[in-house]
């Protein structure tokens, strides 16, 4: 694999493969994930982009306009994994038969709804079969396209429209499902968890590895949603930094069964720093809910310890 030093300016001046003019919100993390991942494609390489139904799909491919510079397929909500496995298999056959000369890469995007929940089986199947493809989850922690309903990726105690905080409820009861670890247990070629930090170096280099490591790869990218989380768009990069510095969203990768921690904060920040700028956690800062924040902190500490042990 080619390993070059990361040059932010150079990377950012690569041609965009997601054209402007799509209808995603200002301050949307999902779009940034897509642009960053697609930048990791070598310029001569062609790609087929897959997409589960969700915000991204309905906003980037509204007939008769597509925002994608590459071939693109949206099929349905729960089958982005299976659909791209069909495309990839077709490529292998047609290549074998000499009907195709170009090199194609296969990258599919799904939100946490299409990935953690309704598309979980299809994802698991595609990963287990080992198709040479990358499944990228732009994880914004709820079903945002339909208006912020909870998902299994929603953090505990978040206020969502199906787990509203109220007099008798503190928001979502359950803790997050750890999807990156579950996919790692499929023993796939590459798993990476990332978000937007350090001039996108982490996400960009993980995307390169995911795309160019032969076999099935999974990227889980925390992608903030201004409407669902309730933050000012200008706050997004700070929220991402706090997510990794509090160890709420650790950066790691799993290659050939080996777990590697990508980043260890010099000073692990208290979880309040991540929660405070977000409207979905506002109720936790009432005096009577101090205990809930302490609980969240305990869960994070526990998972961080587990991860560090795996990475040793």
């Amino acid at each position, binding site marked *: 694999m080619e390993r070059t030093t990361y040059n932010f300016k150079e990377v950012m001046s690569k041609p965009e493969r997601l054209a402007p003019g799509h209808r995603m919100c200002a301050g949307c993390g999902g779009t940034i994930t897509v642009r960053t991942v697609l930048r990791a494609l070598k310029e001569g390489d062609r790609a*087929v982009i*897959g997409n589960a139904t969700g915000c991204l*799909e*309905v906003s980037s*491919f*509204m*007939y*008769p306009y*597509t925002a*994608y*510079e*590459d*071939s*693109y*397929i*949206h*099929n*349905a909500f*729960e*089958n982005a*994994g*299976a*659909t*791209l*496995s*069909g*495309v990839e*298999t*077709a*490529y*292998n*056959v*047609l290549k*074998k*038969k000499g*009907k*195709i*000369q*170009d090199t*194609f890469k296969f990258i599919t995007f799904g939100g946490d709804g299409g990935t953690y929940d309704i598309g979980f*089986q*299809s994802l*698991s*199947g595609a990963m*287990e*079969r080992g198709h040479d493809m990358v499944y990228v989850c732009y994880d914004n922690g709820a079903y945002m396209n339909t208006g912020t309903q909870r998902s299994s990726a929603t953090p505990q105690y978040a206020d969502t429209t199906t787990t509203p905080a109220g007099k008798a409820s503190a928001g979502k009861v359950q803790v997050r499902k750890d999807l990156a670890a579950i996919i790692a247990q499929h023993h796939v070629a590459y798993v990476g968890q990332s978000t937007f930090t350090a001039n996108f170096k982490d996400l960009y280099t993980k995307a390169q590895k995911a795309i160019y490591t032969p076999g099935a790869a999974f990227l889980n990218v925390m992608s903030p949603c201004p409407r669902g989380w309730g933050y000012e768009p200008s706050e997004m990069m700070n929220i991402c930094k706090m997510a990794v510095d509090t160890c709420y969203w650790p950066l790691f990768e799993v290659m050939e069964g080996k777990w590697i921690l990508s980043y260890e904060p010099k000073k692990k920040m208290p979880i309040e720093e991540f929660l405070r700028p977000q409207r979905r956690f506002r109720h936790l800062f009432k005096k009577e809910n101090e205990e809930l924040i302490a609980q969240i902190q305990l869960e994070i500490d526990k998972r961080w310890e587990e991860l560090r042990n795996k990475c040793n």
Partner: protein
Amino acid sequence: MAIRERLSGNEAVAYAIKQINPDVMPAFPITPSTEIPQYVANYIANGEIDTEFIPVESEHSAMSATVGACAAGARAITATSSCGMALMWEELYVAASNRLPIVLALVNRALSGPININADHSDSMGARDSGWIQIYAESNQEVYDNYIQAFPIAEDKRVQLPVMVCQDGFITSHGVENIFLVEDDKVKCFVGEYEPEHYLLHPTERMAVGPYAVSNYYMETKRGQRQAMIQARQVILEVAAKFKEMTGRTYSFFEEYKMEDAEYAVVIIGSAAGTCKAAVEQIRNTTGKKVGLIKIRVFRPFPEKEIAEALSKVKAVAIMDRSEMFSATSGPLGAEVRAAMYQAHGTAQVVNYFYGLGGRDITVSDFEKIYDNLETIARTHIVTGMYEYIGLREGTLQEEK
């Protein structure tokens, strides 16, 4: 020279797949169609074909991957039955609206519940509005012949629609019959190379599949699919004519059996037509009564004018439905045939029967009774209900009339 063989319906389909050598087959096992992917996997394992088999984790993924493969530019197929197709339901519509010429071998089986593995048409009849061409078979020979004809129909530029090749679970899928196979090179030549115009992996163009289409565009999409269905009629007949040249075997939208002078007709789909033909023979030989049969081969596009014409001279018609749709008026075939006759100002008395649900047998003597009933109805002009049952155990329910 045609090759004489003894094959089950599933073996016949698998053999046709081997001859056609498609690019991609994603599939998930379900009784009674399981053998088809098994045979294909064996052909692949023995290096007899270069199809790629995707052992998907569900039928939803089977059709999803088939859609992906076909959109990518591959000739893509799958096979299923019953609940397997029900799980594909969403994808059936996606395949049709994306105008993907997928061929699905459907081995008809009753839908749950209660769970039942035997033949009826509830699976394909439920999918009749999904935009797929549907072709049905009476015998193993017909399954084989229909399967080969499905590709040039689906892939014709005037059509570009997916095709469901249907056969009755166990009755033909597992029943072994004498069959004439076409030589490999002739099949290859008949089906031809798959050369799509636009596809994801195209060397010089890019393509986007599966848009979000708002109300400004959606309705025209559906009208486009209808146009393809209309054009499919001509293509189905052209392909049948070419097939006849190759094999001598005749196919059309439906088969008319002893209909030239028939006064009483049964309209039916699938394997039970064979039993009905035996009844027709027997009645004509023993009583001289003018009875006949129409066996529907193509249910989508429905040949409404031709059916109405074929029934224009009979006195009474029994339409046989092998699936429920819980309509107050009829089963699915009953509804189509009645509507076609009504529009053509047909004068025959019509009775609609449910039979064979969940694999219940229907016998020659059942059909004899049906023809007796038709005679009575033609004489008295009294049809007691919009629908009736054949072979339902009496006393199991109190029907409110």
